[in-house]
């Protein structure tokens, strides 16, 4: 038991070290980029060219293969920001603050993708590209939280104060997540309830569900890749005057 706990603590301390993260991520990146790209290609080609068309919506429902994965990662990234905020506030782990800084723009970009793809989907099917219903509005609030984090960070000169401020903001914004998730059940919305169910049968036929799940998986893998890259860049920004970083650059790492 103590051995396991010890190795967890060791991993935690390693994770907090910039040089360790910088070198391990450079080893992880090629394989994970390749995997993410191949799985994305598989999911999207399957979804767009080989899955059946929907009986009520025809071909346009295929937007689901980008809309749902984008919305899913947008919320999950925010959840991870809130956890990082908690870790930063309690243990003062520098890497957690850096994580928030690096991930916020990625989360914002996927929220934009979810909102815009939803609007393009809604325009012909619903008859409008936007309504102020609970699901759409709470997703817009998610985007505003991302933008607030990005803005708040850049408004501080001192990195420590900036990390602290965005940690608090990231945690506060997490209350929005269950609201997004449950909005379609709690209130009358134009947006339909979710089709992928965990504890009961999904309401999307399996021929459409499988490529959708692959697309979702590939988006998570891509977020992992983008996250590693953004964090490396942020480490470089903070550590460019340090000797270890200069050595890494000399080795072309």
């Amino acid at each position: 038991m103590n051995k396991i706990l010890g190795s967890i603590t060791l991993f935690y301390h390693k994770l907090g070290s910039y040089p360790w993260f910088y070198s391990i991520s450079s080893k992880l990146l090629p394989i994970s980029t390749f995997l993410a790209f191949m799985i994305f290609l598989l999911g999207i080609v399957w979804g767009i060219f080989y899955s059946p068309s929907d009986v009520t919506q025809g071909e346009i429902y295929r937007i689901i293969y980008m809309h749902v994965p984008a919305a899913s990662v947008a919320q999950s990234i925010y959840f991870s920001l809130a956890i990082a905020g908690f870790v930063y506030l309690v243990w003062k782990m520098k890497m957690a603050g850096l994580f928030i800084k690096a991930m916020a723009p990625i989360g914002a970009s996927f929220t934009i993708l979810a909102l815009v793809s939803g609007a393009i989907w809604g325009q012909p099917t619903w008859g409008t590209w936007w309504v102020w219903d609970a699901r759409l509005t709470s997703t817009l609030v998610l985007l505003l939280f991302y933008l607030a984090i990005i803005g708040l960070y850049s408004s501080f000169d001192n990195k420590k104060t900036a990390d602290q401020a965005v940690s608090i903001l990231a945690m506060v914004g997490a209350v929005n997540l269950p609201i997004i998730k449950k909005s379609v059940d709690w209130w009358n919305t134009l947006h339909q309830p979710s089709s992928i169910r965990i504890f009961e049968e999904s309401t999307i036929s399996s021929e459409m569900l499988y490529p959708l799940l692959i697309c979702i998986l590939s988006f998570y893998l891509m977020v992992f890749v983008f996250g590693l890259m953004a964090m490396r860049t942020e480490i470089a920004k903070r550590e460019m005057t340090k000797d270890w970083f200069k050595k890494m650059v000399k080795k072309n790492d």
Partner: protein
Amino acid sequence: MIELFSENFHLLSVCFLTIIILLFNYIWPLIKLNKIKKNLKKIETT
């Protein structure tokens, strides 16, 4: 395949937007990191 998209301008534009967002997330940190590395090398050589 061409029919699928010509009938579905909406679908095509979402595909396009997705690719733009993914490329942006991939290329943007690369450019910034390379800039920092280049600057460092310049300082080292001078």
